[in-house]
């Protein structure tokens, strides 16, 4: 186990810089001295940005918000792995003590056909929102539904639904997938709602329209590489993909939407 004492390390960042969607982009090498190992990865980037600002240069653009691993805003590919080397963790929760003095660290944006680079490490993940808009909901208006306890949900079903619902929509699964597929993302929402009684009436239509939206938005298909599951910061299981496949096939028999 590492100790709690303060250490500093020197590292070299190879960070992706790209002015905009049409710019070709390139890696920029930035040596970073005296990084305290207690800093988080994003705090390290903050410090680099402070230095760049003082030098009158433009800071590195990267998305982040809550910095406690729940909002799903942050995420870059660090040394080839979405969200970096630590399992079950978003990039904002990665700390510099996981690196060693002298490390060269490559930092890149999510790369996927469906996600355009906006600037540097920022990408446009709005296609994920569009998939949800195509059917990732229960069609219920605000009003006076039945009493909450009128829909009993067995505890194990509620737990499985919650496992799937824990997806934070960060897009790491897409970035990791060699096909840039959004299957894990889609399957998490389809599973959550198909498991619960509230979601059953629209289950068939939902599976078909969300898969169609995924295809239309240029995400690839699933060929069972399972890297999505390996990089998911919330450990969403590919069992959900199996469930999505079942729902999708079932929908082909049952629904008129085909």
């Amino acid at each position, binding site marked *: 186990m590492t100790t709690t004492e303060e250490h500093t390390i020197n590292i070299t960042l190879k960070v992706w810089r790209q002015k905009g969607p049409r710019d070709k982009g390139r890696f920029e090498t930035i040596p970073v001295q005296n990084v305290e190992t207690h800093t988080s990865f994003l705090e390290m980037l903050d410090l680099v940005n402070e230095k760049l600002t003082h030098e009158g240069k*433009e800071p590195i653009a990267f998305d982040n918000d809550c910095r406690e691993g729940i909002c799903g805003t942050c995420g870059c590919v660090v040394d080839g792995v979405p969200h970096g080397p630590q399992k079950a963790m978003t990039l904002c929760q990665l700390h510099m003590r996981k690196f060693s003095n002298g490390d060269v660290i490559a930092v890149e944006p999510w790369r996927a056909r469906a996600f355009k680079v906006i600037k540097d490490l920022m990408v446009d993940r709005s296609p994920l929102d569009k998939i949800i808009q195509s059917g990732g909901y229960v069609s219920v208006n605000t009003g006076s539904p039945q009493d909450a306890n009128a829909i009993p949900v067995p505890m194990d079903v509620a737990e499985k639904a*919650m496992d799937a*619902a824990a997806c934070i929509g960060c897009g790491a699964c897409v970035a990791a997938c060699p096909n840039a597929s959004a299957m894990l993302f889609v399957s998490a929402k389809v599973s959550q709602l198909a498991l619960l009684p509230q979601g059953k009436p629209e289950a068939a239509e939902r599976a078909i329209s969300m898969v169609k939206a995924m295809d239309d938005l240029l995400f690839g298909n699933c060929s069972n590489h399972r890297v999505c599951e390996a990089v998911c910061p919330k450990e969403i299981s590919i069992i959900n993909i199996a469930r999505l496949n079942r729902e999708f096939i079932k929908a082909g028999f049952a629904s008129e939407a085909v």
Partner: protein
Amino acid sequence: MQLDGKTPSGPLQDKWDKYRFETKLVNPANKRKYSVIVVGTGLAGSAASASLAELGYNVKTFCIQDSPRRAHSIAAQGGINAAKNYPNDGDSIWRLFYDTIKGGDFRAREANVYRLAQVSNSIIDQCVAQGVPFAREYGGMLANRSFGGAQVSRTFYARGQTGQQLLLGAYSALSRQIGTGKVEMFTRRELVDIVIVQDKARGIIVRNLITGEMERHAADAVVLATGGYGTVFYLSTMADSCNVGAAFKAYKKGALFANPCFTQIHPTCIPHTSDYQAKLTLMSESLRNDGRVWVPKDSNDNRRPNQIPEEERRYFLEEKYPSFGNLVPRDVASRNAKEMCDAGLGVGATGYAVYLDFADAIKRDGKDVIQRKYGNLFDMYRNITDDNPYETPMMIYPASHYTMGGLWVDYELQTTIPGLFSLGESNFSDHGANRLGASALMQGLADGYFVIPYTIGPYLATNGVSDITENHQAFRDAAQKALEHDQKLLAINGKQTVREIHVKLGKIMEEHVGMARNAAGLKQAIEEIQGLREDFWKDVKVPGTASDYNLSLQKAGRLADFLEFAEVMALDALERDESCGCHLREEHQTEENEAKRDDDGYCHVAAWEYDGYGNTPKFHKEPLVFENVALTQRSYK
């Protein structure tokens, strides 16, 4: 200005029904002629956008994040209250109302709080219907727990991610309306001005964060659901993009800002260790159910905590509050931790931390039980600090967490600018001087799902459809002014970064306008804030241009607002010469160092009116009238 809360007459229980019956409705066929702007997509904003669109209004919704699913409501862990009384333990709408008004130390409006308790049950029904996976009992019924010292189990939860699940529920309802075309969604937009034409809110100017462009949007009404201002302290549990900008722009355009000094400090956060730090991480206060809070008795004790013998430790909460012990309310726990650290007894790198020790609980219940209860929190702590809380005590310190103050609104959630409404944390309405645990989520969703869909109607019905478009001169002028503001910031080209100045502001606020305040400190804070503001406008360095994604420029704009707003906060704390809830004026304490209210002098809402840059804002009072509850003194002895 006479502040009219527009509280309906009649018995408390009947006010909301009476209001809904007497109110002017918009004909269903006419709703599609109206357009409404909603800014913010947290619980309140998403819920409002979806619900208004379902009614038939044309909604334009804006958020600062890259997706409406990411607002900071998502980070709430503990749960959401409702008066369902499923556990049969004596809860009722009246009890939830009473607990909320008492918890707020009698500085909120009775009618608003009662309505909140009334609609709380519908929120749970609505969320379950949407497929929110709340925790369940074996028989399939919803599970409840007691939270934040409440004596009934009225809190619904979804693991430690209740905020996330409720927000994703509201986001799914919003997404459905975006899919049908009833809501037009604009992401990565930041509000930079509110456009007022003939004294009414007619639209907004937003910065497109990607292109830097100032975009103009007109509508028949504007709804702000833009959250709180906790980041005025720089370090807080808030997300990076949380800011006071939208509410402050409204204030500058004439909306009154109410009780800005009411801010909540959460006791169990991971302490500040160094200036590189960007935020403080909150850990659920459920930890205090089993952890014991202590500091060494000797201020020069540098031993590791496990080497300090029992008799040389000071369990200050247990000593001072024998009956509640470590479970005293948030403000009391926070203040006592600060007192210990101010007296030199604090621990850790900065001396601003206290121990939260689980050794006794582990000895009593076994490590397995503690792991089952708090495993995820212990893991989170270990990951951030690299310390193992199963073996050595955690270190904790209070951090800014929620702001009860906000835009002044009446019973209809309308600000003092006609046509401008404010929901959720961005208004001041329901929590008084202190918010109870699991009540923030309740208020956000109540405002969005069940209040604004009704209360926006009368304004629209009375004022009709506006013919003012984005081409109106007022829109052009406002957009031009926003561009000039940017150019001014870019041209300063000084030596300090935005972050460096924000850190300085945070230190002033924490020192003088934080957990304990006094007149001399507040006066000093006001002077220091004014000085820092001058520094900022002379010496800030903002690289890049205005026609691009420029984070430094965005943050400079937000800090400029904070540097003005912070002064209003300090002024409000100075004017409120009493203690109440989270606002402790050191001059006014009971013998047990508790907040001592002055109900004769300060049983009112303090509302501030902007009076030009650099001028002292005008003070207005809305007296609070209590017809249904007796004002009592809180005691946790």
